[in-house]
């Protein structure tokens, strides 16, 4: 990315592209919407806790959609919840990102055939950036998903539309 290697010798000035600075700021403090749905949410909480420490990537739970950057759909999305998720997503300010965590929110998971109440994939109501497979995914898998999202943000551009 080259943020710090273009440092001047006096140490107080850094030259970088605006894109890089903004992307770096965005990807380094992704506040996730404090929100969980099912057993995946337990793994997500474990990821936030001290052993895996989501906070070292700048991820911390924010219990309001107005100040959240990323929403981790952690669990089974029922049809009843899908309408609420859509509303939460619409309440988030741009730029906003979505991580779909686990088989249920990726594609319906074990409920794909007989789950009369389950939405077969959260991407039917909101656009997903990163899919994390697993049932439920281990914290390492969710961290990997977050790193993938950071990679995606790192290559964004102010002028070109990416999504």
């Amino acid at each position, binding site marked *: 990315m080259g943020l710090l290697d273009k440092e001047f010798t006096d140490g107080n000035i850094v030259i970088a592209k605006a894109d890089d600075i903004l992307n770096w700021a965005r990807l380094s403090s992704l506040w996730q919407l404090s929100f969980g749905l099912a057993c995946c949410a337990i793994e997500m909480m474990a990821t936030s806790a001290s052993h895996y420490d989501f906070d070292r990537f700048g991820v911390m739970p924010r219990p309001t959609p107005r100040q959240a950057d990323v929403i981790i759909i952690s669990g089974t999305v029922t*049809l009843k919840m899908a*309408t609420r998720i859509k509303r939460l997503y619409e309440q988030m300010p741009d730029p906003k990102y979505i991580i779909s965590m686990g088989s249920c929110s990726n594609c319906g998971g074990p409920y794909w055939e007989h789950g009369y109440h389950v939405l077969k994939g959260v991407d039917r*109501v909101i656009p997903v950036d990163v899919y994390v497979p697993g049932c439920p995914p281990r914290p390492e898998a969710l961290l990997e998903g977050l790193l993938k999202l950071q990679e995606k943000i790192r290559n964004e551009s102010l002028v070109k539309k990416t999504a």
Partner: protein
Amino acid sequence: MKNPQEIFEILSAQFPDANIQIDASLPVEPIISVNPLKINVISKFLAENNEMLFDSLMNLSGVDDANGTKTKDEDGNDVINGGTLSVYYHLHATKLNHKITLKVSAPRENPEVESVENIWKTANWHEREAFDMLGIKFLNHPDLRRILMPYDWEAGYPLRKDYKNPEFYQGMKVTY
């Protein structure tokens, strides 16, 4: 402490017109079946009589017996006509330490069962669930709304054996 056979005999003597029967041939504990429109008075008796004192409704569950005539509609889906829907009540007396299982069966076309919410408050949500999943109407229930499915769910009752899931709900595709 009384066994189900003794309780059955007391109930039969007390409510001769409630069509009370006992089925003791099951691998589980005997099941006492009663008239669905008499379950409230019988429950009140079971809860208040000094020999019974059933103070705890451990569980209340609805069942689709699927014992009507089964046909297929033009799309090949099962349709069941006639037969019954049942509600099972598992009661426990914490002081006397005895248990019984009650059963009521109501016709599938108009499944009306008296509510026991005024006797055991725990029945409130259980009956709402049985209503939500199977469409059993509990008479005199104070708040008989759907409890799990969305309030505007119009596709019917999902745990009925001839239930057909809708293609769309609020613009969201439901089928895989």
